[in-house]
């Protein structure tokens, strides 16, 4: 707990986990706001304009929190991970700098226009502004995913005489196979967060008999979007992401699944706690042969277990990795079930008479945040013990000049700061939701 390495890891993990609570909501809401604006424009229905204004307000607050918690992220490569920053700057600084130049300018300019300029610019330009915000926030996501994908699956570079990585192919960096699937998986994850959030607010309005007209509008849009996103999240994006892990990080796959010994026709674990000391799973419940099929498309395929790999290649926190992965997949399955049931009731026009379903929808909004967080924990813990997979180990990358004491000082500072931010954010969103839509 007191080593500089641990502190620097916690520092980054804490600040990025907290940061990503906001972008997943804004990236998920952005396409929904575009849909509202488009419906308002083509159907000439002012209700959708009001909806867009309301969600624009929630978007703006979340965007602000995303920006102010995001600035530390760009700094922390240098402040806490200086040796990593030096080693990989020749490659990943390209995408990080591109994010600033291409995405942030776009987002910040058009958000100003969207929030302050509805009267001044008219409906056509206002619709355009919402599209640009959508484009900007999703572009920003792409550059970050490309950066992470390079750490997961480094390509398009060579190591120069100075011992650091240098880019040799711009397009293979940007078109990294890993990045494409990870991006889609991540963005549909964000869509799940955004649409569950919208549906939950709708359910609240309907249950509280408040703004019911808009409650139904939000429920309809939210549930349909959440159903589509939840299905795409499982297949193809989740499936393809899993295949990439199988192919390029087999030891990670073994750790995620809690598979200690190599097996042919390996089953997939639904329940069970990994016991790393005894190298077993306690009270496991399996679906036989499913892991072999999902990984290799053959029921009898051989799946390598952890013991097939040298111990110094194992992810260093196997239980947490295992739980993160299982929480992500488990919640993903629940999302499909809940949204399918809600969509069915909506279609049969029976949702209103089914209060328990409305309650379920209303109370389910925190879970996509948890699932997205668990997904990122899976990706990043799975990459351990490497910072850049196969090239640079995590313990070789942190800022060796920053003592554990100084690191802990700022980590505590961030914790205090983010506690205050959380209270403010919850208060403001609650305030906006309760205030409702203007008439």
């Amino acid at each position: 707990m007191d080593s500089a390495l641990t502190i620097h890891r916690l520092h980054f993990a804490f600040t990025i986990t907290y940061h990503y609570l906001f972008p997943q909501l804004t990236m998920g809401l952005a396409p929904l706001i575009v849909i509202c604006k488009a419906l308002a424009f083509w159907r000439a229905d002012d209700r959708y304009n009001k909806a867009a204004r309301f969600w624009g307000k929630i978007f703006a607050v979340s965007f602000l929190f995303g920006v102010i918690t995001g600035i530390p992220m760009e700094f922390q490569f240098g402040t806490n991970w200086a040796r990593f920053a030096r080693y990989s700057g020749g490659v990943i600084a390209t995408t990080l700098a591109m994010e600033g130049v291409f995405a942030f300018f776009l987002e910040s300019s058009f958000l100003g226009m969207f929030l302050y300029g509805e009267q001044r610019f008219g409906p056509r330009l206002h619709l355009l502004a919402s599209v640009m915000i959508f484009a900007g926030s999703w572009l920003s996501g792409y550059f970050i995913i490309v950066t992470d994908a390079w750490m997961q699956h480094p390509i398009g570079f060579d190591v120069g005489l100075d011992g650091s990585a240098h880019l040799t192919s711009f397009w293979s960096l940007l078109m990294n196979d890993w990045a494409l699937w990870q991006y889609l998986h991540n963005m549909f994850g964000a869509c799940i967060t955004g649409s569950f959030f919208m549906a939950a607010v709708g359910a609240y309005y309907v249950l509280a008999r408040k703004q019911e007209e808009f409650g139904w509008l939000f429920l309809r849009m939210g549930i349909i979007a959440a159903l589509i996103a939840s299905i795409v999240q499982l297949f193809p994006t989740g499936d393809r992401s899993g295949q990439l892990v199988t192919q390029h990080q087999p030891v990670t796959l073994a750790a995620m699944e809690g598979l200690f010994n190599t097996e042919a026709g390996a089953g997939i674990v639904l329940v069970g706690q990994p016991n790393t000391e005894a190298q077993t799973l306690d009270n496991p419940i399996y679906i036989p042969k499913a892991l072999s099929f999902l990984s290799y498309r053959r029921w009898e395929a051989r799946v390598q277990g952890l013991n097939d790999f040298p111990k110094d290649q194992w992810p260093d926190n196997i239980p947490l990795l295992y739980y993160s992965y299982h929480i992500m997949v488990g919640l993903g399955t629940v999302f499909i079930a809940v949204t399918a049931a809600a969509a069915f009731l909506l279609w049969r026009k029976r949702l209103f008479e089914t209060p328990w379903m409305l309650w379920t929808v209303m109370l389910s909004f925190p879970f996509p945040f948890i699932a997205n967080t668990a997904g990122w924990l899976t990706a990043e813990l799975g990459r351990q013990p490497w910072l850049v997979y196969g090239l640079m180990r995590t313990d070789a990358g942190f800022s060796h000049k920053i003592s554990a004491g100084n690191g802990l000082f700022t980590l505590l500072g961030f914790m205090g700061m983010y506690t205050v931010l959380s209270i403010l954010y919850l208060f403001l969103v609650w305030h906006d939701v309760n205030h409702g839509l203007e008439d």
Partner: protein
Amino acid sequence: METLWFILVALMLAAYVVLDGFDLGAGVISFFVAREHEERRIVLQTIGPVWDGNEVWLIASGGALYFAFPMLYASGFSGFYLPLMIVLWLLMMRGIGIELRSHVRDPLWWSAFDFLFSMSSFLLAVFFGAAIGNVMRGVPLDRDGYFFEALWTNFRVGPNPGILDWYTAMTGLLALVALTVHGAHYVAAKTEGAVNARCRRAAAMGWPVLVCLTIASLIATSSVRPGILENFRLHPWGWIIPIIVAIGLVAMRIFVTRGRDRAAFFSSAAYLAAMLGGAAFANYPILLPATTDAAYSLTIYNARTGDYSLRVGLIWWIAGLALAIAYFTFMYTAFRGKVSRRPGA
């Protein structure tokens, strides 16, 4: 190629200082010129639609700096660890100070956020100035190009300096005064009536202090870094920079007395850009001078990234910036004009 990127990064930083400079200055000045809720709201509205975009220049410059000179980023950001973290906290407080004030209609809420906004703007101006002071004075780089500075040691300029010593405290003060005057010009140009008049008075009062500090800092810099004027001797055309600084100073005085707020604002913008340009020109090709051994200094040659990246970078960077400038021009034209008292706005 590395010289070109040096110029590009310097230009981006200058754009950041000029643009975010006025909204930082507006934060400081709002404490003095806006006396009640409505006036504070007006000052905030002058920067409301643009501050976020201005701050993106910081992120973009940081990104470009990391891109072109990864070693400088790795070394500088870890070496200036403590002040950077404090700057991050201040940027957060300032962001919420600006954006959340209008969310709740309550005088107590307003005054809390006004304080947050002004206080964080004030401290940020000082910290940014001190940062430039550190880069001018030099830092204790080791053989591998890394260092770490405590917030202060003995306040003396020596081989083991802290972030704050008498010299960097002075540059911090200079930045505070310069940005305050710059912000006063901006708010004056965007407002009418009492706020406008008070801004002009504040700018006029700040001016003599700014002139004295500018001169003092030039003298101090040449005593802290004796060889600092070398580039001016080698390339005499560089003297145009101090001349612009002087013209900017004189012009802002003249325009403020004549009540030409926009012209005064552009004068202080030119002053700020020229001050930064001068610092960059004097340091070239050094990026971060070492106080330990001159050979350990980070230069554009030992801190740069690979050739291929720099070449490809030029293409996307020009395309991206062209787009950014297009958005900015559009935004500033769309929101031009004065912010006035509008009921219910």
